[in-house]
């Protein structure tokens, strides 16, 4: 079982809060599985299934196939805009 800190940036933070700590039954889990798990637990989190919501693990942007281990930081974020 692993515990992960999952944070949210941008519009999705309004719906999901800035951060959640979650426990998962497996020893590792993919980003895509985290999205699916959250969406199942929480109606508001269905937004995480949209492709424009990107993910980063330990501050690197990754795809859904990326696997996450204990101690790693997961970030989901809405569309970015600077300038």
């Amino acid at each position, binding site marked *: 079982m692993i515990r992960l800190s999952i944070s949210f*940036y*941008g*519009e999705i*933070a*309004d719906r999901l809060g800035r951060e959640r700590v979650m426990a998962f039954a497996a020893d590792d889990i993919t980003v895509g599985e985290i999205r699916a798990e959250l969406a199942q637990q929480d109606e508001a989190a269905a937004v995480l299934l949209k492709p424009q919501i990107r993910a*980063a693990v330990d*501050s690197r*942007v990754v795809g859904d196939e990326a696997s996450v281990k204990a101690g790693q930081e997961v*970030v989901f*974020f*809405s*569309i*970015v*805009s*600077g*300038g």
Partner: protein
Amino acid sequence: MSVEARLELEALDAGAELARFISGRTEDGAVVSFTGLARKRGGDGNTVERLRLDWHPVMTERSLIELAEATAGRFGVSDVLAVHRAGEIAPGETIVFVAVASPHRRQAFQAADYLMDRLKTEAMFWKHERGSSSGRWIEPTEQDRADRARWSD
């Protein structure tokens, strides 16, 4: 060639940044700068009381550095500076300051233009406008995406 990119959590003084950037510069004839200011009127036409730029403690500054480096490499200019505010910003305050130095002006204009197009769509900020009665998240506009698409990469 030098590239400087940084996040600024306090006021950003565009005049002082420009003065520092041109100081002692005798090889480059051309410096183009862009200053982005927080507007009083939002994209929806309503008055903006406060703009908030959320940022990530690692990824945001890194995105600035990567975009500034890509700009310097692509146009072969001498120096690139990018300073970006984060946090709470009042109308009239400077959000972003970009400067590019080059021996000749054409490259300096192009590089500054390119860097701004990429910052608009790729810098890792999340921008929220608060008016008197409501708030909204700001995403790049269609125009921003069209501007970005002018450059082939």
